[in-house]
């Protein structure tokens, strides 16, 4: 007999917000907004979907995204008993060194990034390599909302509702050959629109490169995201296409992807190249293995107020042990950090 054991991240019937609450909140919002509707009519269509979360700035969704939105599987994965980080914080406090090293730089500078048109190259050990326009690349996939914890290697964390699809679905499309052992991702390199790439004192050899073992990429939790908070990704969060691997430190989740390669050798990642003793290939969230310069045992869950600091214990694999620990049996996680 098969016994289904619920995983910690499973969404249960009881977690779902009752539709009546949800609808009444919407009608309330609708009513409150109706007064100013006349003056801002053109924004209405996108603002309606953005209202899924409070205070979400409506964006300008590309057509392919707007077409996919109605079929989205909302709350496909959720977190239990944790509140979602406010939109403003998730979009105005993050690292995206292509736009500067301060936490506010991405939001300030990423406006220059041009995400349409966008193309993605698939190459390496695959049966179907090619260069795809993003709208064609996205055609086969249904969007799912995945609410994940995000743990930055710098010891802060957030909870973010992403929208995307599992990498396993992509791999099914492009058919890796038997030689493919790793998947390598590359961010856009464009010094014209990315001021961080122009710094002559920078230590990073652009473009930004990240990678996963193929079995890690096949794990159902690993997704490619195109949206967050019910809308398309804002530029500063890695528009139009980014990786999200919730059991690894945030820097693994490479942004603004232009190239995905299936390779036979472990790719040399950007942070490994800068400081191999501080940032390993695996970069699994692990409270027992410190960063050489700070402890990883605890994290500041943002927003963390000045007079009400929100400090909590970091969980092994960021709380996704049930789903991913089996990937690493027999591997010494102290050596393979």
């Amino acid at each position, binding site marked *: 007999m098969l016994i289904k054991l619920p995983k910690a991240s499973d969404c249960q019937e009881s977690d779902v917000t009752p539709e009546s609450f949800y609808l009444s909140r919407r009608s309330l919002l609708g009513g409150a907004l109706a007064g100013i509707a006349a003056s801002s009519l053109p924004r209405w269509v996108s603002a309606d979907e953005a209202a899924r979360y409070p205070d979400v700035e409506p964006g300008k969704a590309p057509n392919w995204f707007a077409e996919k939105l109605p079929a989205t599987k909302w709350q496909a994965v959720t977190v239990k008993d944790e509140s979602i980080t406010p939109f403003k914080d998730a979009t105005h*406090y993050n690292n995206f060194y292509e736009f500067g*090293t301060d936490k506010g730089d991405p939001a300030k500078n990423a406006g220059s990034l041009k995400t349409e048109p966008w193309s993605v190259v698939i190459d390496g050990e695959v049966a179907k390599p090619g260069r795809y326009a993003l709208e064609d690349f996205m055609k086969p996939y249904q969007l799912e909302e995945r609410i994940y914890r995000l743990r930055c290697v710098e010891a802060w964390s957030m909870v973010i509702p992403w929208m995307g699809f599992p990498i396993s679905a992509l791999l099914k499309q492009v058919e890796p050959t038997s030689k493919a052992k790793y998947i390598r991702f590359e961010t856009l390199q464009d010094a014209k629109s990315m001021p961080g790439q122009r*710094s002559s004192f*920078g*230590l990073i050899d652009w473009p930004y490169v990240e990678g996963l073992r193929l079995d890690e990429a096949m794990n159902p939790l690993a997704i490619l995201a195109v949206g967050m908070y019910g809308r398309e990704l804002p530029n500063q969060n890695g528009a139009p296409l980014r990786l999200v691997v919730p059991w690894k430190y945030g820097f693994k989740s490479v942004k603004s992807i232009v190239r995905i390669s299936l390779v036979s050798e472990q790719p040399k990642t950007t942070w490994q190249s800068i400081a191999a003793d501080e940032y390993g290939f695996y970069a699994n969230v692990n409270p027992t293995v410190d960063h050489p310069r700070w402890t990883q045992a605890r994290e500041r869950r943002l927003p*963390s107020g000045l007079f009400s600091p929100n400090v909590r214990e970091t969980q092994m694999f960021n709380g996704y042990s049930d789903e991913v620990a089996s990937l690493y049996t027999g591997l010494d996680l102290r050596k393979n950090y």
Partner: protein
Amino acid sequence: MRYPIWRIGVFIAAAVWPLLWLYEAWSFALGPDPGKVLVDRLGLGTLILLLITLGMTPLQKLSGWAGWIAVRRQLGLWCFAYVVLHLAAYCVFVLGLDWSQLGVELRKRPYIIVGALGFLSLLVLALTSNRYSQRRLGSRWKKLHRLVYVILGLGLLHMLWIVRADLKEWAIYASIGALLLVLRVPPVARRIPRRITKKATTATKA
């Protein structure tokens, strides 16, 4: 007291920043992680004040105006005040007042060790900055206060180890620091034109 308005002006200019930042933190203007922002700003403020303090002697020599020296001790003490706040903010917001963790950090992290050494050195200089110590230590006082050059090195190293990906900002502070040290190398210092030498000597004593 000479230059009272100048001294008070410097006092206000140095005191206003931490108050402004505290107000910003209180009014949620520092983003979702205000503690970290405060720690960073206070640390950088310490370094900038150290560089300003070290700039007073060359400025006085170049301009001949004794007012620069009149605020030097005050600026040095402000530098100490900022480092005390920096350390306090680190203990509260980064360590969450977990003292056993402080012990771990002090043993394991080179940049924390270097920062702690810099703090202790600044503490020594602050404690001996009064006239009583100057009289008591006599000629040794000047030697002791040359420790400030070591502190500059420690501070820059402390910052360098925190930088993760872009050295531009650090390089700017390091080159200003290097320039201020070069101006003190005797062969260079001799070449700086001394204007109104007499006034300058009396001012140093004052």
